[in-house]
């Protein structure tokens, strides 16, 4: 389709969704001066866009193959405004064509598109004949919004927390340590002698979690501690900042803070002279640590190996460091989180764990790297309640996909990512799907043999 033809289609598209108000966007944008907008954009295009941005923008042929890959497009009656190329056209494409001379109203709309209508899930990248990275383009728009100070309120609060505390939920240092001691005490009632080693130098594993675990979901720390102890692992967590591997600044376009957060995380692991980082079940954190943080820091690769919980649990089960005594008996399906499957290739390992721990497994379709995003990812759920209704309505295809899996027998969804849990919970509630969601650690904790922790002698054999 020609450039003009494309624009014509766009101009007749219906307004599918109600306008949402985020006073943070409105108030911040209204303060901007016109020359401020163009100055910021010009600087970013010149200093940071470069060849990559130019190549992507000049290569796109508007063929439309990306459209059917996008859950926003499919869920909004195929409104071209929601197609990946459409979103690029409404934002960075016009910004470049107009050389940054865009209005305040344009910035507000571009902010809303980049932050709440694209999950940076990169499903469209698979279907683009040229492999154009639409997520990169949307992050570029977010970067512009960040430099203009126009960012949705809830996610900016999370980014502020990152800046002030190096974790995403305003957890203070003493509260973090207290939470570890507390969960250690509770877990010792179940596993006598259990420890959560804090600041133990030269441990093999540096275990890092994300903010919501100490803040509200402390049972995940409990379960991880039980698994580590029963498997007889040499592990530790840090008492100082760096325990939170999440990174919402990566999604607000704050590259500088993204890099600082990763540096603190890596340095915490290096300070304790650990051999590798094992991360809890989170998707975006995994991407930020394995792929993004090191590049923003100017490092070729992370300074020590980084292992996601899926790889780690698979390793423990295959090596028989933990034994499964009773498989999970409800039929399960698996939601492939974008950042660790499409971005990290862990889909087969995940299925390996399911094979060893669950009686019945039903694949949802599409699956693996073709799975639809939960629509919480890319920071959309972090943009908070002003966008919840839109977020849920814009993922009708996910509801259909889950309903199909349910009709084939699935009752429980395994999703090894915090954001996916939040997004899927909302979808299940809104579309009345009546399914429950679990982490791998929930399943493994429930099925493993906890009565026979590995002895030191047994560990030596491995």
């Amino acid at each position: 389709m020609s450039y003009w033809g494309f624009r014509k289609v766009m101009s007749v598209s219906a307004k599918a969704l109600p306008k949402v108000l985020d006073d943070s966007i409105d108030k911040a944008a209204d303060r901007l001066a016109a020359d401020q907008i163009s100055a910021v954009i010009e600087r970013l295009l010149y200093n940071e866009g470069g060849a990559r941005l130019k190549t992507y923008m000049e290569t796109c042929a508007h063929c439309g193959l990306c459209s059917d890959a996008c859950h926003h497009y499919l869920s909004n009656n195929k409104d071209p405004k929601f197609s990946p190329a459409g979103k690029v056209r409404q934002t960075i494409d016009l910004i470049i064509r107009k050389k940054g001379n865009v209005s305040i109203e344009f910035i507000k709309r571009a902010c809303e598109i980049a932050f709440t209508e694209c999950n940076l899930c990169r499903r469209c990248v698979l279907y683009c004949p040229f492999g154009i990275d639409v997520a990169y383009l949307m992050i570029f728009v977010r970067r512009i919004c960040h430099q203009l100070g126009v960012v949705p309120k809830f996610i900016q609060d999370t980014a502020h927390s990152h800046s002030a505390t190096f974790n995403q939920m305003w957890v203070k240092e003493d509260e973090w340590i207290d939470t570890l001691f507390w969960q250690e005490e509770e877990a010792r009632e179940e596993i006598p002698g259990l420890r959560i080693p804090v600041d133990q130098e030269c441990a093999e594993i540096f275990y890092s979690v994300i903010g919501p675990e100490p803040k509200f979901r402390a049972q995940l720390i409990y379960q991880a501690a039980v698994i580590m102890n029963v498997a007889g692992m040499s592990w530790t967590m840090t008492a100082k900042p760096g325990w939170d591997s999440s990174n919402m600044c990566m999604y607000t376009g704050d590259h500088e803070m993204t890099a600082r957060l990763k540096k603190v995380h890596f340095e915490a692991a290096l300070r304790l002279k650990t051999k590798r980082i094992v991360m809890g079940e989170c998707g975006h954190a995994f991407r930020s640590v394995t792929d993004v943080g090191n590049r923003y820091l100017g490092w070729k690769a992370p300074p020590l190996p980084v292992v996601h919980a899926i790889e780690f649990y698979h390793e423990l089960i295959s090596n028989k460091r933990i034994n499964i005594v009773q498989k999970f008996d409800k039929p399960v399906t698996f939601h492939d989180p974008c950042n660790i499957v499409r971005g990290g290739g862990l889909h087969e390992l995940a299925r390996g764990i399911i094979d060893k721990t669950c009686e019945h497994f039903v694949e949802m379709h599409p699956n693996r790297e073709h799975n639809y995003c939960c629509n919480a990812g890319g920071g959309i759920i972090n943009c908070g309640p002003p966008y919840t209704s839109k977020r849920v309505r814009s993922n009708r295809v996910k509801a259909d996909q889950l309903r199909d899996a349910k009709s084939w027998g699935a009752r429980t969804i395994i999703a090894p990512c915090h954001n996916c849990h939040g997004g899927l919970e909302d979808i299940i509630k809104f579309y009345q799907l009546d399914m429950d969601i679990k982490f791998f650690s929930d399943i493994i904790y429930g099925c493993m043999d906890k009565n026979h922790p590995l002895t030191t002698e047994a560990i030596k054999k491995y």
Partner: protein
Amino acid sequence: MATVEFEGNSFTVDEDGFIDNFTSWNNSWVKYVKTQEGIDELTKEHWDVINVLQDYYKKNGIAPMVRILSKLTGFKLKHIYELFPSGPGKGACKMAGLPKPTGCV
């Protein structure tokens, strides 16, 4: 923002069902959220959690960590989740009239 009418009271709520303003909270809101959260009966223990959340929020402007909640109520983590099946961040904060916590929740 949507409006919820319950027992003659009117509450403005955000899209996640949290009331927009802490000062418009009252007992009737608690009864309304109880119906939404699948809680069978409101006990003194639910009220202990609500009171702690509100006291902490008034002093600090943020929801406490579940550890603080446990310390101040004397309930174990598991029990807090038994009282509020959707968890302290979603169910309990909503019932106590606090805003939705920010972050990956």
